[in-house]
Structures are given as C-alpha cells and as structure tokens.
C-alpha cells in the first residue's frame, strides 16, 4: 500500500526526521518496501500484513505510530451532517450490514475539476482519477479507511434495498463485465435490480459521471465473510473489498460522510444535503470485548519486565483502554482492531512499541530431552558416500507432465494435482526414473554425456480405498565413460557392473537377483536388490519404450532403493586376524553356461570348506570351438588360511579335491586340464 509522507505527517503533527519516521514504520511491523521521492512529496510503499486492516489508511498508520512519538493522532476536519431524511432506503438486511448510512446531495455539480492537492495525492497512492465525487470518496478512503460508494440518484428507480441477490440476477459492473449472481451474494438494489455487489463493485447503470447532478453516497459496515465470499467468487479484489474483508472500523461510516461533506463544501456550492443513518448498531465479534491478564504475562512471553507505565501509555495511544488493578490488566479492544482477541495479542502490541531489537538475548537452556528420543536412523552417510563415488545429487520436481507415467501403472494409482500450475507439472510421481531420465537427457543435450546422478525424494501413490501413501526413495543413474581420456587410465563405457559395484561398496549385504517382472526395465538387464530376503530396490537398464519416451540414445543404468525398508545400522565387531600365511589356489572348470556365477560362489560358501576364507570368480571365458555354445570356462580363486598354524599342501589338497567333487555333483563341472 502506497502512502504520502506529507499526508502522514499532517496527522502526526510536526515531525522533522523523515528517515527516522520511515524506519519506525518497519520496526512497528508496517514493513516499508520502498521509498521514492515524487512531486515534492515522498511515497512510502508498505507491505501490509493481512491482520492490519486498521492501517489501510493514513489516519490508521498515524495512530500506530502515535505511541512512538507520544502524540495523539489529530482528527480530520468534518462537517456536521443534518437534515435527516427518511426516504431513499427501503430496507437493510441486517445479516449484510449493521451500520448503513447515506448522504444525499441534490443540485450537485460533478463536472468540477478535482482539486490539484487531491489529484496529486491520489496519483502518489496509485489511485486513478475518475471524476470529482469519486475522487473525493477515494481520497477519504485513503485518509481514514472507509470505502464508500456513490450512486447517480437520477439513474436509480425507487429506494435502495440492501438484500441478497436473486438467483440468476445479473449486474453490469463498473469493470465492464457482466456477473450472474447467486442467492448468497449481498447486493444494493433499486426496483430495477442490483446496482452494486455490496462492498465490492458498483453497477454501470447507476454510476456517476460528469453530468451527474444528484447523488446518494453510501457509507456502511458490511459483514466481512460475505464480502470475502463475493470477492473470491468473482475474483474481484477492489480497494473496497480488500478493506471490507479484512475489517473496516464499524464506527467509521458517519465520520467518513462528515469528512466527504467537509471536502465537498470546500470546493462546490452545495445548497443542502440530507443524511440518513438507517442502521447504526454494528455487530462484530470483537466489539465490546475485554481482555484480562496478569501483568506478569508480559515477562513470561517476552522474557523482559516492562513497566506498568510503559504498558498503560502504549496501549492508550493505540486506542485501547487499559486499567491495572493489583497486577491485573484489563483492556478493551478498540473498534478498529479486528486482530486482537487474546492476551498474547496485547503482549505483541506492547512489544512492537518497545522495539523487537531492544530485547536482550537469553541463551536457550540446554535440552532436557533424553538421548534416546533423538533418532539416529540417518541416511545422509550413504548420500555422502555416493557423492564421493562421483555421483552428483539432483533435485527434480515431484510433479510430472500429464500422462507421462503411463508406462508405470494404471491411472487409478497416480495422484493428480487438481489445480496444476501447468500441464507439465500436473501429476505426482509414482517413480523416480522419469525425473532422472529427463535430467540425463537435459545434460546429454548440453554436452555433459558422462552422467552419474542420484536423487533422494518421495514417490506418491493412491490406493484402491483412495488413501495415499508416500515412500522415500533413493534413485540414481549412470551413463557415459568411466574416466575422461587420460594417460594413465583405460577408458571404457560404464556398464551394469559399475552400478552394481558402486552400490555394493556403499550398502551392506545387498544381493542382486535376476528379474523379468519390471516392465519399464529392459528384460535382459534388470535385477531386484534385496537385503537378506527382503526386496529393497531394483536396478537395470531402461526399457526400449522408456528410452524412446525420453529420446535418449546413450546407454543408461538405473537403480532405486526404498530407503525406508533398508536396514542401515551397521555395527562393527572386531574379528581376530590370522598371523599365518594364506594359500591361493586357482581352479579352472567348465560349467554349463546357464549357471550363474553368483550361485556357484554362494553354494561354495554355504558349504563352508575347512580353512577356506574366501572364494571368487577371477575369470570367465567362452570358446565355441573348444567347448561349444552351452559351456563356459570359469576360474575360481580360492583362499585358505588357518588361525593356529601354517597350512601344509596336504591340508589344502584335501579341501581342493572336496571342492572339485562338490562342484561336479552340484553343477556337473569338469576341471580343465
């Protein structure tokens, strides 16, 4: 909200230091967004929080500053309203308005040029000029905070009626649009129909122009919630609705008309006016409200003891009526403060004036929480390890383009955003691979084709009973080469085993089992990752259709791990080290080519041969001519060691022949000579 500094100073009296005044606005919670000099005045743009409806006027802001300068706010000059009239308003529905007044002026000349001082200030405050009377009403609204509306009396048919709209009733509003109303929308009508959406916008049919010679000015207090509904329904935020829905002082409407009359009197020769206050018993939840509290409450919340005198003075300047009796404070809430209802609100009022920056700092006492309450299940170690293995962490949007997840699951299990910001962010991800593939594609197209990335985030699913669930997933992707070309290292393309190796080195006890069930991964390269018997993730190469969907031609290998399922506690217990030498033996055997190497090692280990401390596959070799298509040659490296003595050849030879027997029985393996 923009206000003029000169105007503000008229209400505060003689203040010399402009910079000080501006910084005080911010320290009182009326945050100054910008300050600019214009037309021998200064425009201050204030970022008003929605609770401070009372500060949507020059007078309101001056009142908020009054305890700082210890000056009572000056009141505007007003004309006395007389010549009461009974006519012109037929009925006021009290659900809509509980304070409704009109000012009728006949023999009025609206062709007057708006006086320069009024026009200038409207311009500074960003309000466009319309015509004389409308400009005066806007000026008074900016000055004291009461929105008003003016009808051309000659364009009205019969008396005004403040009522709810009839269903389907139409209004041609001043913004040039026609709105079709519903029965919950309050309107001001004449016998022709709605002439204004109450408190929001007037009708073109009864609007004033420069030929207007007879006017009815409405100044009212409208039900906040009703105004809010109308404004929201028709997406109409006007200067008027903005104030009404936040809360206009219900006792302001007659003062505003008096102020209008005073200004009109100054610039035009009005012979007489008629005034009618039809209803004047404002009803609002905060009116007549008292707050009682212990004086000690200030210290409890703020941590600092404030003097009773300071509390009383501050609240008095702000329009409260404070009384302290025996350490109890009793205050009435002023009619302009819709935001005050509990003791904490009163504390904040006093604290604002004391100045938040003037409070001391008291160190937070040490935590009294027990250590067991502090959780330790922390995945961040694994993310650090991934990044030290060359993976870059990425963050992609949780929402994906419409229909981009067809490959993953049926439409019932995805969660759609009902009001997406755009089509490409309209459904929640059920899987991480989309975001990562998009990131890979983005980088490949920017000449970054060596990719090692990971993301940790949630996936979202809807179940048959319409409940939703979220799962924490760690996913990653590799593509490109192992190293940039260099003198020392052999460059090659990254493959599945690079991905598997990275994962094995970071997580404990993972096993990889061949799979064919994952529809979005390639049939020839996909695995389920398990920890113990529990599946905790999957990995492999994207399916052809997924490659196609993202237009990616480079080979990619992907993994995802359901981090919530993973057992991360890694307890280390020392195992004794043998001081006796190890004996290494290599065995080269022919196996059926369908037998998986992991299976062989697993079975050898499960059999636990004496002294054998390790076994691994050190070479695999295929040769069509020598042993045909259905056989492969594998070299096993077996390591033997004892904890109590140096092993002799005989010890090992016995075990080796047992291994050979076992492999022959189990796998039909033949030793190659």
């Amino acid at each position, binding site marked *: 909200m923009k206000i003029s500094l000169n105007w503000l100073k008229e209400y505060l009296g003689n203040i010399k230091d402009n910079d000080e005044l501006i910084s005080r606005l911010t320290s009182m919670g009326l945050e100054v967004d910008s300050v600019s000099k214009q037309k021998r005045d200064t425009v201050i743009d204030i970022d008003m929080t*929605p609770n401070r409806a009372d500060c949507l006027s020059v007078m309101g802001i001056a009142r908020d500053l009054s305890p700082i300068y210890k000056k009572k706010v000056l009141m505007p000059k007003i004309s006395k309203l007389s010549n009461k009239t009974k006519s012109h308003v037929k009925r006021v529905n009290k659900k809509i308005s509980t304070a409704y007044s009109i000012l009728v002026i006949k023999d009025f000349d609206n062709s007057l040029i708006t006086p320069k001082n009024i026009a200038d200030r409207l311009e500074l405050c960003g309000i466009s000029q319309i015509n004389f009377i409308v400009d005066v009403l806007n000026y008074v609204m900016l000055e004291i905070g009461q929105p008003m509306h003016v009808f051309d009396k000659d364009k009205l048919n019969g008396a005004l009626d403040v009522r709810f709209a009839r269903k389907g009733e139409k209004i041609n509003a001043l913004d040039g649009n026609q709105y079709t109303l519903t029965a919950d929308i309050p309107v001001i009508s004449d016998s022709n129909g709605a002439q204004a959406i109450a408190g929001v916008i007037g009708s073109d049919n009864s609007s004033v122009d420069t030929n207007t010679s007879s006017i009815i000015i409405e100044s009212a207090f409208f039900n906040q919630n009703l105004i809010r509904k109308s404004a929201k329904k028709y997406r109409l935020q006007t200067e008027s609705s903005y104030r009404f829905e936040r809360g206009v002082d219900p006792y302001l409407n007659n003062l505003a008309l008096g102020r209008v009359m005073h200004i009109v009197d100054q610039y035009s020769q009005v012979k007489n006016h008629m005034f009618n206050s039809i209803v004047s018993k404002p009803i609002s939840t905060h009116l007549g409200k008292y707050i009682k509290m212990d004086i000690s409450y200030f210290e409890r919340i703020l941590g600092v003891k404030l003097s009773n005198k300071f509390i009383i003075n501050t609240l008095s300047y702000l329009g409260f009526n404070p009384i302290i009796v025996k350490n109890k404070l009793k205050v009435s809430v002023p009619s302009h403060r819709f935001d005050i209802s509990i003791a904490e609100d009163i*504390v904040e009022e006093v604290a*604002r004036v004391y100045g*938040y920056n003037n409070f001391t700092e008291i*160190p937070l006492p040490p935590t009294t929480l027990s250590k067991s309450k502090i959780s330790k299940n922390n995945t961040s170690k694994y993310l650090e390890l991934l990044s030290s293995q060359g993976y870059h962490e990425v963050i992609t949007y949780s929402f994906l383009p419409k229909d981009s997840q067809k490959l993953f699951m049926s439409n019932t299990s995805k969660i759609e*955003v009902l009001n997406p910001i755009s089509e490409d962010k309209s459904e929640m991800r059920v899987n991480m691979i989309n975001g990562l593939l998009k990131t890979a594609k983005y*980088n490949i197209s920017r000449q970054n084709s060596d990719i*090692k990335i990971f993301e940790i985030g949630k996936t979202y699913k809807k179940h048959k009973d*319409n409940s939703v669930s979220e799962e924490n997933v760690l996913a990653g992707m590799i593509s490109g080469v192992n*190293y940039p070309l260099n003198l020392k290292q052999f460059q090659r393309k990254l493959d599945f085993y690079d991905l598997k190796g990275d994962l094995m080195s970071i997580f404990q006890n993972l096993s990889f089992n061949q799979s064919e069930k994952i529809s979005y991964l390639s049939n020839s390269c996909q695995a389920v990752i398990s920890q113990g018997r529990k599946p905790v993730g999957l990995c492999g190469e994207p399916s052809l259709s997924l490659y196609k969907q993202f237009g990616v031609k480079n080979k990619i290998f992907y993994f995802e791990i359901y981090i919530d399922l993973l057992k991360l506690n890694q307890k280390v217990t020392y195992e004794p080290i043998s001081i006796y030498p190890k004996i290494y033996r290599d065995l080269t055997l022919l196996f059926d080519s369908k037998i998986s190497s992991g299976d062989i090692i697993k079975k050898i280990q499960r059999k636990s041969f004496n002294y054998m401390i390790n076994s691994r596959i050190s070479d695999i070799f295929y040769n069509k001519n020598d042993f045909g298509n259905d056989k492969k040659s594998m070299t096993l490296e077996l390591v033997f060691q004892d904890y109590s003595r140096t092993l002799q050849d005989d010890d090992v030879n016995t075990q080796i022949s047992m291994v050979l027997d076992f492999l022959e029985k189990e796998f039909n393996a033949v030793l190659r000579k």
Partner: protein
Amino acid sequence: MPKEYSSLISELREKLDSCTSEHDLANIKSHYLGKKGVISNEFLKLRAASSEERKILGINLNTLKDEAQNLIANKMSKLSSAEDSNEKIDISLPGSNIRLGSRHPVSLTINRIINILGSYGFETVDGFEIEDEFHNFDALNIPDSHPARDMHDTFYVSDSKLLRTHTSSVQIRSMLSSSPPIRIMTPGKVYRSDSDPTHSPMFHQIEGLCIDEDINFCHLKSLLTAFISELFGRDMDIRFRPSYFPFTEPSAELDIKFNGKWLEVLGCGMVHPNVLSNVKIDYKKYSGFAFGLGIERLAMLQYGITDLRMFYENDISFLSQFEGLK
C-alpha cells in the same frame, strides 16, 4: 703396484666401461671383491708371506682393493644417476582421475542448518508432503475464512488432500504424538502455486519448534542470532521486526543486511496458544517458539546464485561446482 695388479685394474676398467646395468655391475663386484673373488684370493697370499714381504704386500693389496672399490663405486653412482634420469617424471602432468560427485546446494544448505540446530538439541523429523487441511491449516490457527489462506496458494489433489504449503504440518503431527519438552526441526519440500524468477511451485523449507516450560521471546532471539552468525560464519547485520503469522503471537521476521539492503530470510514467533490447544498442550504450563526459512533463498545468498531455476535444471556443469562440499 706390481704389474699383475695394474693389469688387474685395467681389466676391471675395461669391464666397467662395457657394463651398462646394475645387475652386471653386481656380478663384476662379486668377481673381484666377493668372498671368493679375485682380489680376496690375493689376500690369501698374505698367509704364506714372510713378515717383511707381508708389509709391502699388505700395502699393495690394500691399494689394489681401494682402487677397485673406488672404481666400482664410481660406476655405481654413474649407473644409478643414469637410471634416475631415465625415469625423471613430469610433475606437471595431471594425477590419476578420481572423480568426486557433489551434494545439491539445497542439501548442502539443509545439512549446514541441521548441524547447527542439532548442536542446540533440535532433532530432525520427516513428514507427509500430501496433507489434509487440518494439519496444514486448521490446527495452525488458519481457518477457512481467514485471509491468511490467501498467502498460501495451495495445490489440491482431492477435496480434502493438498500438497503441504509449509512443513509446519509436521510440527503439528509431532506435537500430537509426543509431549513437551519438544525440540524438533522439519526440513523438506513444500508446494505453492506460484512460479516466476523468484518463486518455484516446489521449494524447500526448514522449520524449528521448541516447546518447554518458561521459553520466551529472548530465547528465540538468542538462538536465531547465534544461528545466523554460525550459518554465515561471521556476525551479520540483522534485525527483528514485527510481522504476522496466524500460528505465532507475537510474530517476527528476521532480516539480514546484504550489500546495504535488508533481505527477509526467516519468519518466527511465539507459538500461538490456539495452536497449542489444538494439539492438546497446556499453554498455561508450556510456551514455545517456532521459526521457518526458505532454503533456496539462503542457498542463493550463500553461493551467489541469481536464478532460482538453476536448482531444478540439474545441469552437471552447475552441480559439479559444489564438488566435495559437505
């Protein structure tokens, strides 16, 4: 020196001249100076010599031995220096590649904050991103009719479910499921229907909550002042000013001065008694404070990033600038 010795030496010289490796040199050395070497054998003659002869023979033999040793040692140093120069390395060539990856600047910022707040006893709590209106709004003292709901442009996924607009919903769940004292921090993604160079429909927040007996505004100020200087590694010019949040009263905003301009970085305040009642905490016995801040904004300040969109484009040229940071 007797003739036979001189010829022995010249024979040795010839052999050394044609010798090119340390291995050959070792053979030559043992041939002459080894236990059963030519020169060692000559020493055996001392036994048979008379004491007169022994004196002269001794001197001659020692001269021979010294000469041979010198020649071999010289050759040795020549050979080894020659082998050295063969292997002289170019230190300026790059070392073997160890490619480090990186954490995302958003995660780096969250981690720094978690580490600082953790040292004040705050523990991390994770929560739902798809929330209901009760936990995201109502329990936080933001009723449906409240204009404050306009401050949150909310994404809905069904009539009753929405994408959380702040991580305060996690605080509500924590307060409902545990009792004071409470000290938690809730980092995570939040969603608001807003998109321009300074707003993203998805961004990250971290909020802190401290509930105990006798917690007051001065504690809040103290913690946040310390937090900001620890985060930036130096004392910053900061200010607290009154603001408005429906879930805190009094409410404040913390600004930091950057290049002569005040920037809003953090909202905070004393937890509103209505919020405490909503989660069944006795507000007459307990009080507390809460605060929240946007991560991206802070990361932009810390790393000098000017375009918010960089965070979600995930260009590896951008990400790799954060290599090795923790």
